[in-house]
């Protein structure tokens, strides 16, 4: 693949978040039929800075990014990054009561295109949260311009 190829105009990319490369913490891909795609990926280590990455190729363009995840009283905040570019900043996944299959949309994310490391990293927590869990299912990059 040439540099020109990886930087051409992008198309939509959908990624089930399973089997990533662990940077910090312990991550488990757990079958659970209460979640879309029948699974969720979560950090049993539940520590701040727990991180997992995925290899992903995205063409240049402007994207709406959709992340499906779980909220609960023990969950932390997550940064989602492509290499060094934070595309979702400290998304708070705390809620007093559990909620499954929640979706967050981050609009108009501008990318130059190329091969990226997609990173999900715990970055702090809500004052009301008891821990630093993160549970995620799915991420979708939908090109809009």
């Amino acid at each position, binding site marked *: 693949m040439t540099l020109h190829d990886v930087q*051409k*105009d*992008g*198309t*939509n990319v*959908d990624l089930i978040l399973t089997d990533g490369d662990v940077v910090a913490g312990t991550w488990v891909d757990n079958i659970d*039929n*209460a*979640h*879309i*795609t*029948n699974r969720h990926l979560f950090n049993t280590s539940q520590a701040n800075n727990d991180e997992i990455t995925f290899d992903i190729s995205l063409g240049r*363009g402007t994207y*709406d990014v*959709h992340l*499906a995840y779980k909220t609960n009283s023990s969950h932390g905040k997550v940064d989602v990054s492509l290499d060094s570019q934070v595309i979702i900043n400290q998304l708070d996944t705390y809620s007093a009561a559990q909620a*499954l*299959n929640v*979706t967050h*949309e981050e609009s108009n994310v501008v990318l130059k295109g190329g091969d990226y490391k997609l990173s999900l990293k715990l970055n702090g927590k809500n004052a009301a949260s008891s821990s630093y869990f993160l549970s995620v299912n*799915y991420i*979708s990059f*939908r*090109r*809009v*311009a």
Partner: protein
Amino acid sequence: MTYELQPVGKNYDMVIFDGDVVQGTWAIVIANTKVLNFVYSNIASHADGDEFTIPLVIGKGTYDLHLVYTKDDNQGKLDVLIDSTVVINQLDTYDAATQSNQIHEETNVAIGGGLHTLHFRVNGKNAASSNHVMRLQMISFRKVA
């Protein structure tokens, strides 16, 4: 740029878990008997004309479209449009009994390469149906020419 927006197409599978709502209330509903363990449905609003869109970037070509959906006794008919062109016309998703994981194939759909908007719109219902509910899961674009 025109050239790069019209690359030769390839297969693309789109999981329908979140859309940009035009009308109605659309949400994930967990359903363990479905492929991918959920449906994206307007069960809360279930009105004629309910609609959502998803941006679509695809290379030029001729595609067979495969839509995975559910049939039931309260379901409506579905139009699928690419921009303003109807590519699936009033697909009747009514059945007297629940039929999960139905696949509708629409063959030889010619698509110009570039940025498009994919519309999913409820358009009428079978006389025997009690409502305008829609339950969708995924759509595949399989390039054939």
